[in-house]
């Protein structure tokens, strides 16, 4: 925004840069404080009108005024520019202006302020931290008047007080901005971590791959058994053996084809639809899907559940939560440890289902609320530090439940999910 100003003593209109982005965010409290500063000014300098003017594209606005009856200006009133106000000269020249008596001075001819008999003026430009214009701070009087050096210093001090508020506001806006950016980054990271989990989930429990592998396994077991018991001169028996080897080969090939298509499937988001699941069976199948990882960390597991506890819920969310907590135990709780155990207890409490996951790892010594905050991690922890943040988010948003962490020997997580 570039308002054009009529500056006294200059032929052409002067263009200045105004920062108008944050001006509307100046709070009521700040304007009230400015008014108090102006009240102080009128009593110190003994003049009737003290103002803070805000410069707009086409006009000047009374943004704050001293709160005395003698002040003839009206709050938020706009006055057109380009006509030679005192304030235009202050901003255009970017310096202090002191006018003792404009009434007899041809330089100030046609100044609208003179219509009100305001012949005396003292003004300073008010600027944002980036050097762009906000407006002016000024004193106006109907009587000729002069200010001594001390008074001017005081006036400048009051003005810099006002500018400090603008600096604060500017900083505040910048901080809010970078905070927003940080939150967006965090959202992105969480999204990324969710995808990661989905990938695990898909590649772990994909229904398709279990069939050919199982067929191959059963056939191989058959071959092993049959080889010991069969009479190899029997042509019929030999044919059946051939049938077995064909099955093994064909199904292993099928399994490897499926594996190569996993990369594509893994990019799909986890499904978040509601289904009826047998919670105990489902959680067991989650552990089964992590068999290899559990074995790698020398971890045994157990799931205690009431028989056929059917829950209408989002299986995708349950799986993501459990996989994350298992992952957390393996990576953090069991780091470099042997004989690890994870125990899951499921309790049916009429309105709620409580899933308690307990491990015999190293636990956590700090504030247990902290571990759900993003980027919380021990120096020996790997990963982005978002695993548990994600768990909390899924429990609260997708399952409408709560999660609590505590330490008693190892880590304990209590997940409370309402039944619907």
């Amino acid at each position, binding site marked *: 925004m570039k308002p054009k100003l009529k500056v006294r003593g200059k032929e052409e209109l002067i263009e200045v840069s105004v920062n108008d982005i944050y001006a509307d965010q100046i709070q009521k409290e700040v304007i009230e404080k400015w008014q108090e500063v102006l009240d102080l000014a009128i009593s110190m300098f003994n003049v009737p009108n003290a103002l803070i003017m805000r410069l707009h594209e086409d006009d000047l606005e009374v943004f704050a005024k001293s709160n005395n009856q003698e002040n003839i200006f009206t709050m938020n009133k706009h006055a057109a520019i380009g006509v030679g106000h005192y304030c235009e000269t202050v901003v255009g020249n970017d310096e202090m202006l002191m006018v003792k008596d404009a009434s007899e001075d041809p330089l100030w001819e046609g100044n609208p302020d003179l219509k009100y008999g305001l012949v005396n003026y003292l003004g300073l430009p008010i600027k944002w931290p980036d050097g762009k214009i906000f407006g002016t701070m000024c004193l106006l009087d109907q009587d000729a008047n002069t200010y001594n050096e001390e008074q001017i210093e005081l006036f400048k001090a009051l003005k810099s007080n006002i500018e400090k508020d603008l600096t604060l506001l500017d900083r505040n806006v910048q901080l809010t901005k970078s905070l927003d950016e940080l939150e967006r980054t965090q959202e992105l990271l969480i999204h990324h971590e969710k995808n990661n989990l989905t990938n695990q989930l898909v590649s772990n429990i994909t229904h398709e791959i279990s069939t050919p592998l199982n*067929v191959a396994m059963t056939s191989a077991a*058959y071959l092993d058994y049959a080889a010991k018991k069969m009479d190899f001169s029997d042509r019929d028996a030999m044919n059946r053996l051939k049938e077995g080897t064909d099955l093994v080969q064909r*199904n292993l090939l099928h399994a490897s084809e499926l594996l190569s298509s996993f990369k594509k499937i893994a990019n799909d988001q986890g499904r978040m639809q509601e289904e009826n699941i047998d919670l105990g069976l489902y959680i067991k*199948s989650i552990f089964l899907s992590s068999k290899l990882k559990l074995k790698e960390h020398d971890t045994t597991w157990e799931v205690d559940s009431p028989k056929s506890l059917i829950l209408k819920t989002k299986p995708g969310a349950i799986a993501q939560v459990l996989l994350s907590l298992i992952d957390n135990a393996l990576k953090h709780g069991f780091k470099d440890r042997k004989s690890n155990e994870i125990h899951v207890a499921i309790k049916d409490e009429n309105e709620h289902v409580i899933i308690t996951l307990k491990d015999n790892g190293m636990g956590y010594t700090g504030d247990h609320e902290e571990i759900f905050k993003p980027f919380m991690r021990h120096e020996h922890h790997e990963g982005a530090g978002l695993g548990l943040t994600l768990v909390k988010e899924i429990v609260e948003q997708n399952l409408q439940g709560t999660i609590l962490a505590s330490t008693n020997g190892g880590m304990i997580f209590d997940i409370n999910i309402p039944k619907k």
Partner: protein
Amino acid sequence: MKTIDILVVDDERDVYLATKLAMQLLEFEGIKANVSYSDSAASAIEMLTSNDYKLVFLDIIMETIYAGYEVISHIQKNKPNSDVCIFIRSGQPGNIPEEYLSLIKDVDGYLNKTDCTMEKLHDIVKTIA
């Protein structure tokens, strides 16, 4: 030698072939298993209408994602006194849609596909035969 009639319902023919092979070995233990095969819920219902099976290994996801439950529902409606044993053999044993919840009481067991070994199959048949 005892005889048992088994029906394998699965859209993967190889599952049937492997089961049949596994069952042949039971002959060494005195059990003759006649294994029949159906690749869909529709044809399974047909076969169940005209034959009496002692044991059914039932896949769920076939022509539809809940096709297997249709087979159980049919048995319940048309052969309420039948003593057929039903074992669900599925990749996702935990998922049960609401409309089929009432059928679960007639299911004798779940087999997770990844966890269903020849030994397990033998154990099941030996208990029933």
